[in-house]
Structures are given as C-alpha cells and as structure tokens.
C-alpha cells in the first residue's frame, strides 16, 4: 500500500511538471506576440 502511494505521488508530480512546462511554453508564445508587435511598430 505504501509503495502504491509513493507511485501515485510520483505520477502526480510528473503530471504537474509536464503541465507546468507546457503552460510556460504557452505563456511564452503569448509574450512573443508583443515582441512581434513591438518590432513592427
């Protein structure tokens, strides 16, 4: 049972880590748009 919980926790952390990475990429795309706009302006 203890091992199971450890496994679940590991899985949860892995999920959150991956989600954060994708989220940061998304925010990066958002920021990139202002760079584009500013360069053209």
């Amino acid at each position, binding site marked *: 049972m203890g091992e199971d919980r450890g496994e679940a926790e590991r899985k949860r952390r*892995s*999920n959150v880590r991956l989600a954060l990475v*994708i989220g940061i990429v998304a*925010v990066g*795309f958002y920021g990139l*748009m202002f760079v*584009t*706009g500013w360069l*053209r302006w």
Partner: protein
Amino acid sequence: MSAATTHDAHHDDHHHHGPDPGVLRWVFTTNHKDIGTLYLVFSFLMLLLGGVLALGIRAELWSPGLQFVDPDFFNQLTTMHALIMVFGAIMPATVGFANWMIPMMIGAPDMALPRMNNWSFWLLPFAFALLLATFFMEGGAPAAGWTLYPPLVLQGGANLPFAIFAIHLMGISSVMGSINIIVTILNMRAPGMTLLKMPLFVWTWLITAFLLVAAMPVFAGAVTMLLTDKFFGTSFFSAAGGGDPVLFQHIFWFFGHPEVYIMILPSFGIVSQVLPTFSRKPLFGYESMVYATASIAFLSFIVWAHHMFTVGMPLAGELFFMYTTMLIAVPTGVKVFNWAATMWRGSLTFETPMLYAIAFVILFTIGGFSGLMLAIVPSDFQYHDTYFVVAHFHYVLVTGALFGIFAGVFYWLPKWTGNMYDERLGKWHFWLSTIFVNILFFPQHFLGLAGMPRRIPDYAVQFADWNMVSSIGGFGFGLTQLLFAWIVLKCCRGGKQATSEVWDGSDGLEWTLPSPAPYHTFETPPAVR
C-alpha cells in the same frame, strides 16, 4: 479482458462510489465524465444560441431591403454568431468528447489534473456571460466580425474590453484543457497502450491540444494589443501612430488557420472510430492517418496568409502561401482515401452514427474542394470575402466538424446513458439535417460566384432568389436541431438497455466497460494486448 469483469462486479453497487447528489455535484466535480457532460451540455446550449443569431441573419437576408434589423445590429449578429459557434459550440463540444472518451480509451482512471479540469470548464460560462452581456451595453455587441480587424474594431464602444476579456478567459480555458489532455495522453496510458496503439480519436486530440497550446496564446496576444491600442495609447496596429493594421491580420490568421484544424481534427478522430465499427473492418492505414494528421497540423502554421491574399502581399508571398495551401490537399486526401478504403469491402450497416460519418466524408470533401479552389490566388481574387467563402467554411465546419460531433454523440450516447437512442428518430434527424444543410449552404456558392460579398445585411435584387432558398434551408436546419435535443433527452430517460459492446463491430477499451460506464472506471489499469 480482466478489467471488464472487475467493473461488471462493481456495477450493481456503483452508487456508493458515485457522485454526490444535488447541484453542487456539477460545481465541484472533478470527474472526467461529469465534466465531459458539462462541456457537451454547455456546447449544445451555445449551438442553439448561435443558431438563433444565425436565423436572425437568414431572416434579414430572406429578401432585399431591411425588414428586421438595422445594419449595425446585423453586424453584431454575424460577429457574435461566429464567436459563439467557434468558441462556445464546436470547441467545447470536442473538449467534452475528449473528457469523456480519452481516459476510457487509453485505460486511465481520470484526467491527469482533475481540479484544473473543473476550472477549465467553469471559466467558460463566465466568459460567455461577459461576451453576451455586450448585447445589452450601450452601442451593443462587437460588430467588426469575429476576425476583429483593426481599425474597425477599435471604433467599437464599451463592448471591446468585455469581448477581449471574454476571449482571454476562453483562451485560458482551452489552454488549460489542452494541457490536461496532453498530460493525460502522455502520462496516464494503461501499460501496453503504446502511442501507436492509441485509438485515432486520441491521436487527433493529442495533436489538436498541441495546436491549441501554440495558437490560443497568439490570439490572446493579438487581442491584448488591440486593448492597449484602444485604451493605453500604443499603436501596434494604427498606421497613424507608426503601426501596421495588416500585422493584426497576420497574427490573427497565424492563430486562425490552426484554429480551423482545432475544430476539425477531433471530428476526423470521431469519424475514424465510427467508420471501422460499422464497416466491421479495421481502420485502413492507421499509421498513415496519424502521420497525415500531424502533417496537416504542421502545415496549418505556414498557410495563414491565404486568408489575406487581397491584402497586397508581394508576388513571392502570394505564391508561397498558394503552394503551401495546395499542399494541405495531400494529407487531407490521404485521410479521405483511407476512410473510403476502410469502407471498401466491409460489411456495412447504416446506423445513425455511420450515416453522419459518411455524410461527413462526402460533404467535408466538398468543403475541401472549394478550399482548394480558394487556394488558387488568381481566382481567389474573385472569391475572397464573398459568399463562396461563407459556403466553403460552413461546409467544413457544419457538415464537417458539427456532423462529426453528431456522429460521435449517436455513437457513444448508449455508452454514456446505458440506453439505446431511438434509431428511427436518429435517422430522421440525419436526413432532415443533411437535406436542409445543403439547401442552406450549397446556394451560397452560387451567390458568391455571382458577386455577393459576405457580411452585408442587404443585397442587390439579382441575389434575392438564392438567398431565399438558403434561408429556407437555414430555418429547416435550425428547427431540426430541436429534434436532436429531444432524441438525447429521450435516450437519457430510458430506452432499450445497451450492451457493453453496444455495436457489434465495436473495438476498443471503452467498449469493455459496462453501459452506462460506471462513475469511476479503470481504477486498476486494464491489460492491453
């Protein structure tokens, strides 16, 4: 499969593990099935609302002259119809399918991030409350088209910041939803479920989710710059201040073209599940379907300027975007040929989901043909911004994306409710929808070719006849959707008990679960061959 027996044993007492009673269940739920249902119900309400706006448009276009609305309100109708249908109806419906089906198809107990899942959904009602509130504001709703081109959109009044904030919320919702889907697919598959064993629906959603993560922030950035141009003195898109109004169009369509694939790819996936089932034959060319989907997704990022051939690009630019756009026909063609080959020498039956899937393949292909014609720049100069374009994108989005969604609903409804829907009514819904939708949109090709621009409330008398035909189709198609609501309600309330497999040709993990699927499924991962 062992998983199936485990859950059959649980079936009788699943109420003990089931949802909390009462309304709060839906507010606080972190269950992927509940959230899937919420998305689907919400999207259907938005479909009806967007449909009512469309009927307002078709009523005004019934005959030349102005009868019902003034031109400014007409522009509000076209703008809001598009925003509601794109962000409120089609996208949430496909997310609803993802929530319901992906965990069941890959043998996962739930989505990877259930609380974020809840939040993703509950942002939407608030986003649309904001957007719809603009109808009651001084100056009314946004009226510059869903493409929100400056400088026109900046002439809008109080509605602009509300619409932009609503778009931000929708964007956050779909990016969070996509993150959840990507993480679920990459991290939560049952042992043995390798990527190339996943059902095609899961593949199309994985690719869609990546498109969303890349495209929605781009749109959010573009509308934020509109906001600062309007209220904070920047001139990103104002020529007078040294900015560039065309830049907005480039950014918008850099988002906008992937967006159309975001709407269609999940339906590709649904159809790729339905056709093999009712052909009683495996999907033809599974791997090439995956590669074709990925190629379409890649190409969608390098074709955006075909939406703006008349904007005055250099010749080299026009040629580049013409060639890349034409290239999309190759992977799309592969998909269509594979679907046809799946049916070929099968043992076909024509239940409602199959009818919708076949209609999808044929009518989407017609939309693809007009898309190919639109790619040819010399004739696009004539087609651009006419009803030919309106006909084209309604063929791919209504008879494409929406018909795919209908196919999916009829296909999985017995799995969701445990009851078979009324097949006779389902067929009525199919035939009425298919006939009326073609009366609605096919004449719009003629109108566009004859020279009718889009987004006009009133037209020269030579366009009167086809417009009236189109309006007749519009009202027929709209009313037919009430029948859809009735069929689904009836199925939820009862009907012939569905078996686990539901369809005799069905194949995949979701069909190993009892019908209706228990509240919690695959808490112990199934074994995948």
